[in-house]
């Protein structure tokens, strides 16, 4: 019987397909970490445009909602220069009826 030629052998070998790695392999090699550990040590990838947009939105929100700080009262600036006694005081005296 005549052996297969290169082309035929290539095609025949192509017929034998292997499966991908099963999901169970990932579970064995990469066991899931407890959520609290992920919170403590985990990291996430954020695309730079998303990060910039979120940062800009946060800054804009902070700027819009920010109240001007109250002016501090400085004790040393109080002046009594224009302070004058009352000119025409008309005191009313109420007496308790006997």
């Amino acid at each position, binding site marked *: 019987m005549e052996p297969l030629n290169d082309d035929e052998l290539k095609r025949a*070998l192509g017929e034998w397909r292997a*499966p*991908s*790695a*099963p999901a169970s*392999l*990932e579970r064995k090699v990469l066991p899931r970490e407890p959520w609290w550990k992920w919170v403590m040590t985990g990291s996430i990838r954020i695309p730079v445009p998303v990060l910039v947009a979120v940062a800009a939105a946060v800054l804009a929100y902070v700027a819009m909602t920010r109240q001007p700080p109250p002016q501090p009262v400085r004790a040393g600036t109080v002046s009594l220069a224009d302070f004058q006694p009352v000119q025409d005081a008309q005191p009313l005296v109420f007496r308790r009826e006997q």
Partner: protein
Amino acid sequence: MNRADFREAFALHKDAIYRFAWRMTNSPEAAEDVAQEVFLALLRRPDGYDPLRGQLRGFLFGAARNQVRKRWREETRWSELDDEFTAPPMDIARGETASMVAEAVQSLAPLQREVLILSEYEDLSLEEIARMVDAEVGTVKSRLFRARENLRRALAPLREVKGTYGTVKR
């Protein structure tokens, strides 16, 4: 190699390592065990991989090969490592093309089988394979040649199957 690098390496190479082990052992369970051992060894001893000595892919294939051979050793199949092995012709009545090819490749001597699988299915260069199996490029080339010759003969009955190659020869 930190944890994130390891995860990336696992995602990138797990299928190739599993496929290689699956083809070498002809067993999904054994292939999974081999792949698991390969990646856990990398996780435990990341220093074992030296980037100066080649790509990570080659290193992982080499580790998978060692695991497969370790299994063979445990199953006392060393006698089958004979490099001069000649595969017998296939019986076409027994199955479809894929299973016939699988059987023919499985019937190769392991040293021929591994170079054939790495070259034909995983597209590794002769130099990469030589580094991995710790042999000269010429040795790898001759093993590959013998593996192909064996398969040409073993799979010759495929010509008889109508439609497999578009012609029928009697």
